[in-house]
């Protein structure tokens, strides 16, 4: 298992679930941060650099879809994977239209979750690289002026 410098946030009102999934991801060498509702998630994002968020759709108060919209509005580069316990893929589809990277049905298979997590992280990394390249190009052009 490799160590990464990336950070993953788990958001779910079910504390036991967050804890156990967190332990599994940590066992795989991930850096995991927990949040137990939408507000906590958004507050943490202000303080901490996060790469991928695993977000439960069904939460009391601010639900997953609303949280997702706020995440995407304020931090568009963060990738979000939705967890839906509904069996209804409806909310997942809606979420993906709003910019979520992918979704998983609860209870999710850990292998699958890891795969999607890596893909999401990969996409974020590539996007960051493109931005850096573009910035470099921009600086280069400015220096030539």
């Amino acid at each position, binding site marked *: 298992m490799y160590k990464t410098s990336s950070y993953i946030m788990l958001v779910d009102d079910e504390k036991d679930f967050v804890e156990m999934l967190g332990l599994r991801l940590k066992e795989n060498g991930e850096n995991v941060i927990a949040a137990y509702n939408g507000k906590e998630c958004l507050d943490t994002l202000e303080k901490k650099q996060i790469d991928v968020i695993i977000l439960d759709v*069904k939460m009391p108060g601010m639900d997953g879809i609303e949280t997702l919209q706020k995440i995407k509005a304020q931090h568009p580069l963060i990738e979000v994977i939705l967890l839906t*316990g*509904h*069996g209804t893929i409806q909310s997942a589809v809606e979420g993906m239209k709003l910019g979520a990277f992918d979704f998983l049905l*609860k*209870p999710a298979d850990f292998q699958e979750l890891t795969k999607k997590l890596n893909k999401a992280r990969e996409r974020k990394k590539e996007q960051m690289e493109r931005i850096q390249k573009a910035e470099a190009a921009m600086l280069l052009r400015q220096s030539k002026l």
Partner: protein
Amino acid sequence: MAEHINLLLVDDENDFRQILAKRLTRRGMYVREADRGEKALQMMEEQPVDIVILDIKMPGLDGIECLQRIKANHDMTEVIMLTGHADVHGGVTGIKSGAFDYLTKPVELEHLIRKIKQAHHKIQRILAEKEEAAFKERIQQQMVVAERLVALGTMASGVAHEINNPLAVIQDSAGWLHQILEKPEMQNMPRIDDFKKGLNRINTAVKRAGKITQQLLQAVKTQTTEMVDPSTFVEVSLKKLTDEAITLVEPEASLKNIGITLESCEPHPIAWTDPLQLLQVLLNLLSNAIQATDAGGRVTMILAASLEEAKIIVKDTGCGISKENISRIFEPFFTTKEADQGTGMGLYVSWGIITGLGGLISVESEIDKGTTFTITLPVKK
């Protein structure tokens, strides 16, 4: 004129009877004759009769007694009594015993024909009423079943939602322990294989439970979102879809040496529906049919269509379903299979899908003869 009325003319006076029979036949009625009450009863056993014209005064079994026996055994048959000129009393007794009416001899032909037609109308009316009552009862039964299924589904899906979360916790707890056991430093742990075995069992059981909740939620979803999203509806050749379903279950069938045949009407019926969901239902019905049928049996699929609807019929020569079970067959979690063979969700899901597609699914079965499932789908939207 008369729409094939079957008459039985009963009179011991041969001349009178034969002439009357000839005249009534000429008016387009099917007339049979009997010269005695006993013979009349016997003829009625052999072939049904709509209306009996019955002389009251006969040797042996007399008219009134004969009438009583007819009414006891053939409640849909109407009887017109013929009485002697001075025998009003006999006619009245006849009506009291259930005769449609009586005529006094000598009989005026037009009068008799009028009475026959009246009696025939009465029969038709009663038949129509009976049919209507049976239809109403069938619809009502279907509604009762549908209501119960919806109520059950709502409750079950509530349970499924709530169970998914603890399931996820169980799965990840077991998974976490398993991950730890995979670490190099753990490899010398005593009885590590027992731990792994236990954890694998937990994992398998959780997967099974998760599958049940997902099926349940899918079924409830398909029947509660009014209709399935019509954007997934396309023109579907039922022949093609059925062929595909048969191809998919063929390996399973050939293991038991069961032949699957498809009979389709021409032209092949087309339905406007969701092919994936319909395929799921067909696979469910086919695999049920194969499981219920002994080696060497046969499964038949029949496609039929009218202007309004298309029918897909799946018929097996299997063990059949008992009366007690057939009324519960579409309920969630109802199964007669071993615990790890079936969840009791298959037909419930199928019912939900077909209802969602705007169709109907019904079942008929006879023990040891086989079972027939019929799906009815609207042809156009």
